[in-house]
């Protein structure tokens, strides 16, 4: 297995937040974690990204123990966290700079992705000049440039309005076809989870546990057709049921 988390537990001040979470990710797979807010999804991500250490459990990337190590998985949040004082090109090339590349090299490498990410013409602009959707694209490119080995996306599109979100889903599926970065995706939007994922874990309970897993076998050729198809509705019903039962 490409990426594996085994028996992750974490408590704060004696209160258990997440308990015995194990999950796996194949190469090129997009897996969603679906659950209500406050269930400990973000805590789990902090652990997976190495920002926090689990009380018990281990994380493996290609059979190497990476528990508590930062700098391996890239992490993107609901807030774009672009720096207002840096131009878009400097924002997205920042991770390359952190890795020790020179400014010129970093800019050059980042530039090659601008077209693909639909960010043409924004290089010398500042984040405030971009729309919310464009800012999330820039944030995603920054995450991708940091690490394509494993991407952790924590509700990346949840702050966008419905129409922008719709567009960005299309765009995201398109771009993931080429990137094929193994991705863990946190969301509380069931439609989004079904649309984007290869598999979905349901996270529920107190402390948070993974209660169920779904494999989504939908031909994601056209998102419009898929989201209104019978298969899609069936998945949605099953997932809703699983969430209620938990």
């Amino acid at each position, binding site marked *: 297995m490409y990426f594996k988390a085994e028996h992750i537990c974490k408590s704060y001040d004696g209160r258990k937040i997440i308990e015995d979470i194990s999950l796996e990710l194949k190469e090129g797979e997009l897996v969603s974690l679906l659950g209500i807010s406050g269930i400990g999804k973000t805590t789990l991500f902090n652990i997976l*990204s*190495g*920002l926090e250490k689990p009380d018990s459990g281990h994380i493996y990337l290609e059979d190497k123990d990476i528990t508590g190590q*930062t*700098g391996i*998985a*890239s*992490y993107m*949040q609901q*807030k774009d*966290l672009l*720096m*207002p*004082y*840096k131009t878009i090109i400097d924002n997205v090339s*920042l*991770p390359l*700079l*952190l*890795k020790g590349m020179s400014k010129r090299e970093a800019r050059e490498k980042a530039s090659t992705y601008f077209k693909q990410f639909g960010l043409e013409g924004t290089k010398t602009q*500042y984040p*405030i*000049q971009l729309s919310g959707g464009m800012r999330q694209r820039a944030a995603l490119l920054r995450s991708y440039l*940091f690490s394509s080995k494993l991407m952790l996306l924590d509700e990346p599109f949840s702050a966008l309005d419905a129409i922008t979100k719709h567009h960005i889903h299309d765009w995201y599926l398109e771009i993931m076809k080429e990137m094929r970065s193994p991705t863990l995706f946190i969301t509380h939007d069931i439609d989004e989870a079904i649309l984007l994922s290869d598999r979905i874990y349901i996270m529920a309970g107190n402390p948070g546990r993974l209660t169920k897993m779904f494999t989504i076998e939908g031909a994601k050729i056209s998102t419009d057709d898929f989201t209104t198809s019978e298969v899609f509705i069936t998945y949605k019903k099953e997932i809703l049921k699983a969430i209620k039962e938990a």
Partner: protein
Amino acid sequence: MIKKLQNIINKLYAPGFIIGLILIWQVVCSLELVPGYMLPSPIQVMQAFINEFNVLMGHLMISLSEALLGLGVGILVAFILAVGMDHYRGLHKSLYPLLIISQTVPVIAIAPLLVLWMGYGMAPKVMVIFLVCFFPITISLLDGFREADRDTIRLMKSMGANAKQIFWHIKLPCALPGFLAGLKVSVSYAVIGAVVAEWLGGTAGLGVYMTRVRKSYAFDKMFAVIFLVSLISLVLMKLVSLLDRKIMPYKRIQNKK
């Protein structure tokens, strides 16, 4: 076109008002409503300024170099203090109260002591300027470092950034707006600080000149030097504003929105 005209008119309000005040002043003096030996007319002040121009410039250079030197040392010390205090919590806890207390000590009152200790040269003046300038800069820097977004710092940590990189890419740029605001206050303090320090003793500088002309009741020269001091403060503040625009181009875009 109309908007442009409107802009020009808006910009004329303040200068227009000042010119109006000077005119009233001139009229008051011309009609001798106030005795001439107590209040010189603007024209007399202007004349004094022109006659004394070379002398004034000589003194100005001294005061200005004191001000810039004190300011420079102030900025340097403020940076070292703020960075240290931001990095080491213990240092913050022990120094912060001391910083506040240091501001309750009236610098004007200890200035004569400084002269006694450090002599009549530049040193006590630079010291006074340093004492008034470093505080606003230190505090604005500290606040700025603190304002750095926690989530962004976490993100950078998740990317494996070290403390130096976090400082350089997040903390410093976040502190810049505050630093420049503090600097704007400090440059005017610096010029005034230089003049006040020179009152207490010395052989050259605008403050020394001011004491001399006051003692000889040359009010026209007195006003000339007062205007020069405020002019210099304005010029320095303008320079900080220009620096502001130069190093923070995104601010202007933000303000336009």
